[in-house]
């Protein structure tokens, strides 16, 4: 019986989640429909209250000369305090009929908390004098003293766009997948990806879920066939630079505000107290960046070349390692590793866990005193175990083979660099056979 009941909650069975697809789809559909409704209601209100009146005021309203009889500040209470906008009592005649409406300054009639600004606007007009105004031919009591297009009115049109976009895209997605199983959706997604792959490379991938070797074979070597790309690509130095610049720019603005307050004779001690730990953190980041930059420069370039790529279980390959830098190399070690990588959600964060499931020392060279050199070139043989798992990549899970070159550099200490390898399940020639 339980099989026929709709499950109202998701239940985790081992690594698999169960629950009602129908309810999940309905929930998504309701959420998207709500977003779309909010977007359209907001758009309608903005059009009716702001955009259309402004367009009409500029296109349809009729110019007239009116006598200013009185003026006042309109006050509107809100939760954040009162808001103000000016009002002008005008007197003018249209086709022999006299009108005495309270006119707005402009059609948007925007109320603000800035009372002095609104009072200054009010003071620009003198009672008893004549001014040009524009009235609505459909409703002559609706009058403004100023026309023109405001950026605010048109910018407000952007506000509902994300709601409408999320609503339409979400409903389109729900409609497309309505009543479709996870397998059928997967088939459709795979087919789209396969077509894209065929368009790009002219053929379907021979090994599904195995990364393409293109990122490695794109770079030919000078000693052996291919030069392996590093996994890090210097992102740690670049990341530290960006973080250091952004952090210290914010700190500099806050420090400037604190100093400016002190110079004016009204020092903000609380601000100064709050800025101090951030300034220390900023200085720490700058030191870390300089240290990392010096370390990277000192360690120098690590070149790893390989005789063949992709690799296959049971295969033997030749390696060439070239380590050069400003400081001498005391120890160099090359490891072949295989790592599993799993990405999962924890609350709102996406986390990645890594476990090393294979590690083999390919090469280790200790340099004794007097032997240490700033450039070290070595050759080694690499063997992939016969029962090795091939490289694997899906959206949230990965199995990667890497060469890790690490060691110790004089005066700089330990270093480690990773180079990506792709292990295929079997040779492409086997498939052809």
């Amino acid at each position, binding site marked *: 019986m339980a099989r026929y009941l709709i499950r109202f909650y998701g239940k985790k069975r081992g690594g698999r989640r169960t629950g009602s697809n129908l309810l999940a789809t309905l929930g998504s559909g309701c959420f998207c429909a709500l977003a779309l409704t909010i977007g359209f209601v907001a758009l309608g209100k903005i059009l009716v209250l702001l955009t259309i009146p402004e367009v009409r005021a500029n296109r349809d309203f009729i110019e007239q000369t009116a006598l200013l009889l009185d003026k006042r500040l309109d006050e509107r209470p809100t939760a954040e305090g009162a808001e103000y906008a000016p009002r002008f009592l005008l007197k003018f005649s249209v086709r022999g009929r006299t009108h005495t409406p309270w006119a707005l300054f402009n059609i948007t009639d925007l109320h603000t908390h800035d009372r002095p600004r609104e009072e200054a606007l009010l003071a620009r007009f003198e009672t008893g004098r004549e001014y040009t105004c524009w009235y609505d031919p459909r409703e002559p009591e609706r009058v403004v003293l100023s026309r023109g297009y405001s950026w605010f009115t048109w910018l407000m049109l952007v506000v509902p766009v994300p709601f409408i976009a999320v609503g339409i895209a979400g409903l389109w997605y729900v409609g497309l997948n309505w009543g479709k199983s996870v397998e*059928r959706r997967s088939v459709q997604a795979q087919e789209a990806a396969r077509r894209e792959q065929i368009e790009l490379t002219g053929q379907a991938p021979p090994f*599904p*879920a195995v990364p393409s070797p293109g990122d490695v074979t794109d770079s030919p070597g000078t000693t052996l066939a291919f030069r392996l790309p590093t996994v890090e690509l210097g992102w740690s130095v670049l990341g530290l630079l960006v973080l250091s610049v952004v952090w210290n720019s914010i700190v500099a603005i806050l420090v400037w505000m604190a100093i400016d307050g002190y110079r004016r004779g009204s020092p903000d001690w609380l601000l100064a107290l709050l800025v101090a730990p951030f300034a220390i953190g900023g200085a720490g980041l700058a030191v870390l960046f300089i240290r990392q930059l010096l370390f990277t420069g000192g360690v120098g370039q690590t070149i790893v070349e390989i005789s063949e790529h992709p690799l296959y279980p049971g295969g033997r390959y030749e390696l060439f390692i070239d380590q050069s830098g400003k400081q001498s190399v005391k120890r160099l070690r090359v490891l072949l590793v295989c790592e599993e*990588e799993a990405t999962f959600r924890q609350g709102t964060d996406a986390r990645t866990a890594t*476990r*090393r499931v294979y590690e083999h020392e390919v090469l280790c060279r200790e340099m004794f005193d007097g032997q240490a050199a700033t450039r070290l070139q070595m050759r080694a043989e690499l063997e992939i175990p016969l*029962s090795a798992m091939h490289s694997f990549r899906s959206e949230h899970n990965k199995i990667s083979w890497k060469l890790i070159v690490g060691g110790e550099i004089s005066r700089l200490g330990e270093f480690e660099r990773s180079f990506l390898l792709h292990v295929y399940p079997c040779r492409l020639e086997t498939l052809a056979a």
Partner: protein
Amino acid sequence: MNEGSVRILLDGNRRVYQPGDVLSGEYQVESLRWIEPTAVELSVLWYTEGQGEEDLAVHYFERVDALAQASVDLRRPRRFNSRLPYSPLSYQGVIVKIRWCVRVRVFLRGGKELVGEIPFQLGNLPPARLAEAGVAREPVQQPAPEPGGGF
């Protein structure tokens, strides 16, 4: 009211296949006397298990729709066969596991579904273990899994 079930049989009761082998078998929707199936989907697929979010990809898919083919009887046994791909191989890792299975999903009136599944192994990789730093580890050969039911 009878719940119904899905019976899937792999030819020769095999559970281990090598890349490029043909996987074939038969499936049947059983004991659904009062509820009419509207469609049946058969998938040969792999999915991941472990610490990460589940990924899934379908290697072979067929759908029989009673609405599209009025004469079809979804309760009768149906055969299937598919040549298996060269990857990904079944893998028993530490935080990433790759499982292969044949899954049959029966759609019933009112949006209800019945699912039957039978696992199989593609390739014969040994299970992985955590590597200890500085120690070369060679994987251990894994015995083939016991044949058995898999709904």
